[in-house]
């Protein structure tokens, strides 16, 4: 489907619901696809995809208050943690599984990736790049755990228990013999094409099994 390979305008990335990564995710999701949003929050993205791309959306979210809001929007969201949440679905249940800004918060990222690739034909993962130059400089100059726009937490209250860079993620993909079908990098509102591991603060990868 053309939507999976379409490239947004170079330079400034378009935004969706105020977020550039959402715009890119939505471009990677084909119309009418069956989509699972893992860690869907209140379901903003899922709701948009349902209304605008006719997807059949499902979500997983841990926080009761967010699930309650998502279901009130008419979304089929399941309250549970990611690990227990994924195992119940049969193989190939979804066309696309989305994990947005959550990989770095998971206890077992490799198992989560494997489970998502089991139940979905394609997996869209977005994560903050811990090797962004600002992070490197902050660590080098101040010798402290960095805080940035995408990593706004202090070391003691951060949900980000997995510290990974784009290069680290690519290593995992290679080790597991998975395949990145499409990769898009962002620095704030701009797309990054060169030296992403240094210049990008967010990565969006479309991963499949080989």
């Amino acid at each position, binding site marked *: 489907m053309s939507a999976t390979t379409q490239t947004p305008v170079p330079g400034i990335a378009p935004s969706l619901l105020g977020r550039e990564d959402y715009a890119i995710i939505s471009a990677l999701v084909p*119309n*009418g*696809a*069956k989509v699972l949003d893992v860690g869907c929050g209140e379901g903003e993205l899922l709701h948009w995809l349902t209304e605008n791309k*006719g*997807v*059949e959306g*499902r979500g997983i979210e841990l926080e*009761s208050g967010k*699930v*309650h809001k998502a*279901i*009130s*929007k*008419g*979304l*089929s*969201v*399941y*309250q*549970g943690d990611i690990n227990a949440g994924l195992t*119940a*679905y*049969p193989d190939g*249940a979804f066309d696309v599984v989305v994990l947005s800004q959550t990989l770095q918060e998971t206890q077992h990222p490799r198992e989560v990736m494997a489970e998502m690739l089991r139940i979905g034909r394609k997996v869209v993962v977005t994560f903050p790049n811990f090797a962004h130059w600002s992070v490197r400089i902050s660590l080098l100059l101040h010798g402290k755990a960095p805080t940035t726009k995408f990593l706004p937490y202090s070391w003691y209250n951060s949900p980000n228990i997995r510290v990974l860079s784009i290069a680290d993620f690519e290593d995992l993909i290679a080790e597991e013999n998975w395949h990145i079908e499409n990769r898009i990098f962002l620095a704030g509102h701009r797309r990054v094409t060169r030296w992403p591991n240094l210049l990008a603060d967010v990565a969006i990868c479309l991963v499949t099994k080989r």
Partner: protein
Amino acid sequence: MITHSQTVVIPSFRLDCGVTLSPVPVAYEMYGEMNDNASNVILVEHAFTGDAHAAGISDADGKLGWWDRMIGPGKAFDTNRYCVICSNVLAGCRGTVGPASINPETGRPYAMSFPATTIGDMVRLQKELLDALGVERLLAVSGGSMGGMQVLEWAVSYPDRVLSAIPIASTGRHGAQQIAFNEVGRQAIMSDPDWNGGDYYGKNPPRRGLAVARMVGHITYMSDESMREKFGRRLREKASLEDEDSDVFEVESYLRHRGSQFVNRFDANSYLYITKAMDYYDLFASENLANLKESDTRFLLISYTSDWLYPSYQSLEIVNLLRSRNHDVAYVELNSNYGHDAFLVDVAQQTEVVHGFLASVNRNREARANRGPTVKEKVRR
């Protein structure tokens, strides 16, 4: 809203046990307007000791319906948009045929000769009622506790007739603890000499036994927190010197009161039959589960954090069964201190969730009616 109970008489009805009852009166109430093609109908299922009077003020006794917080204009089950039907279950004692009804063959109450009844029987009788009322498909079936069991049975018995299913604070099967509490209730009734093998109609009913059964039941409907808040260790104040309830804890007085109130509106033999129906229900062992395969029914399950009678893990069992078969299911565990009773009394969040879910089911239905197949159906082809 003043409501009126109506009765449809089904000429004859065969139960799972093989016995045929005839005739079979079914009591029901209806709220809101049914539209021309009867596509806005929601069936509400009552819990164990409930009845057809789910909403509004009854013209018979002036009492408020058991789910009045949820059913009415602008409420979760919005009677400005939907037509809500609730019927008294088979083996009940509030207008639908049950052990207290007169057996036309003998001219005497059925009592313990009433045939063993299942949740499946209750649901099939409701289907007969809906056929009689000209309702082909239900926009939703919803209910809490035993009502939720009936919802699940509807979804697996008649998947084509159920657009959405909303079981709340419920289970697919009783565990040992739930059966145990029911057995305590049954034994309380049967060990009351007035029970007399179930043959007490026209004599003294087993008031003490039934009241004790209700008291036990009531404890399971509350939570440690809600009881602590409501009663604590407070003593009831002496109303008079002769007050036999004096010097008792408030919780004791409350339970005695609820027990003695209950015997005025409920039949002890119905208690026995219906608790047995609940105990024997097992969704997971049901042959009807196979019917779900082609089902498009949307599910919404709700459980409550402090509900220890129907704990969340039992809702999750159902949710995971449905997810493993790729059904469309939403699930949320809502916070409440009210225990199992939460689905009846703590309804603010429940209202929002059910309201939004139903609106979405209704939108899809309208879209389907206006535009033919949905995106999902096209993709399937």
